[in-house]
């Protein structure tokens, strides 16, 4: 059963220099409990697609349902069902961790007590308990990221959208985040839709990979299927596969880590 399904989803921005087709028609189906890696070169339309699927940006074409709610006619239903962690996060540096968590709970219409309890629970889950009364400006990059994700999980969403969740994290924090994403799926059946530029991350984490390029889906399949079809062999790296799909530059000859 598809939790996310889009057909011809498109967004054209009107600029002074004429229309810019950021997303030209994306067709997607994401099953319940799936971890989907959403890849693509810079400017391919990843973030725009994500912003449409989370109701931040109205599509200019096509249709989509998320968790059974139509994106255009029932954005409120979509908002109740999804969590979104933006690239830049979204916490106020002058506010304490606890205040952000409690406010977020209240924004999702929890009562004061429920929101306070949920804040404690999320903090315990994400290792933020000792930091609850610290200002968010005083958190490390990894701690900040965990807070961003805690905010996105406040209402136990059925679908979690993560936009480049591990950018700027050290290897230890990245591994912790991967564990967290797997745990969410295994324990709560959460569907996770994540964009990333780290191909090892997509390889390790995603059940399925969708590559977008120039605003359309260029490839869609499991990591091994894509390697076989586009990289030439199941032993191809995802890097070679990715470059073959998007036609950006030659494949590298060595196998240095794609990103650290």
């Amino acid at each position, binding site marked *: 059963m598809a939790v996310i399904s889009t057909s011809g989803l498109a967004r054209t*921005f009107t600029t002074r220099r004429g229309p810019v087709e950021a997303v030209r028609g994306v067709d997607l189906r994401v099953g319940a409990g799936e971890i989907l890696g959403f890849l693509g070169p810079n400017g391919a339309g990843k973030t725009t697609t994500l*912003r449409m699927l*989370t*109701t*931040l*940006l*109205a599509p200019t074409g096509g249709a989509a349902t998320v968790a059974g709610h139509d994106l255009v006619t029932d954005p*409120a239903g979509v*908002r*109740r069902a*999804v*969590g*979104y962690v*933006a690239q*830049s*996060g*979204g*916490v*106020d*540096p*002058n*506010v304490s961790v606890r*205040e952000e968590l409690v*406010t*977020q709970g*209240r*924004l*999702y*219409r929890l009562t004061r007590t429920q929101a306070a309890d949920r804040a404690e629970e999320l903090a315990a889950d994400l290792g933020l308990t000792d930091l609850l009364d610290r200002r968010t400006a005083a958190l490390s990059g990894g701690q900040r990221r965990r807070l961003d994700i805690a*905010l996105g999980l406040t209402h136990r969403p059925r679908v979690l959208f993560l936009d480049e969740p591990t950018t700027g994290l050290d290897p230890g924090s990245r591994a912790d985040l991967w564990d967290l994403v797997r745990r969410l799926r295994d324990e709560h059946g959460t569907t996770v839709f994540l964009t990333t530029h780290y191909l090892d991350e997509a390889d390790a984490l995603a059940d399925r990979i969708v590559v977008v390029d120039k605003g359309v889906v260029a490839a869609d399949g499991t990591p091994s299927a894509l390697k076989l079809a586009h990289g030439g062999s199941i032993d191809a790296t995802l890097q070679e596969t990715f470059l073959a799909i998007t036609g950006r530059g030659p494949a590298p000859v060595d196998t240095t880590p794609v990103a650290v």
Partner: protein
Amino acid sequence: MRTLTTDTLLIFGRYARQTLSSKFQILFGILMPLLYLLFFGPLLTDLPLSAAGSSWQVLVPGLLLQLGLFGASFAGFSVILEKNNGVVERMRVTPVSRLALLLGRVLRDTALFLFQAVLLVLAALAMGLRAPLAGILIGFGFVALLTVSLASLSYALALRVATPQEFGPVVNAVAMPSMLLSGLMLPMALAPGWLDVLSHVMPVRYLVDAMRDAYVGEYATAHMLYGSLVALAFAALAVTVGTRVFRRAGA
């Protein structure tokens, strides 16, 4: 309706706490009108500005509206910072009412500028202002409505521009002529005909005329009627514009 009230109070609470933690923010806005009161007000005491009352009854309503005019039109600054931190988007992904995202902030601004207005009136009383209590209270009502209007428009503008560098000059370019053309410092009765006519384009002109009537105890005047109508219509229009922008922001 109940969720709108709860959401608005929630947003109001968040920003009110931030304001309360900064004495600078609480008091800074009052500085400019207070300087006018101290160093400009005494120049007017012997001038025949009004048949009905003292020069203070003419000047203080203008200074109170000046407080609202400059304070509220710059309210949007905070939203630019929040937008760049991603806070605005994070809130817009939740089911919270879009109108509440605006009203909660506007309510905080209104509370802040009313508080500053009270301080300013207290200082004016010490300088020699004498006015009926009812008139002073009506004046606070006009300050509140002006704050609601300008803060809403300021937030709407702030969501549309990318940087504080674009925002500041635009607001200044609107606020300065609004102040001069509304006769906030000196009544437009002193103006030549063309300036008086031009000033009627400014909504604040109607508010200050009404407030000056209130400060001399005249409540059933044409000025009061037009002032109230303009203030209410301006507020309704501004909140509508603000909500529309909050609903579709980010594009």
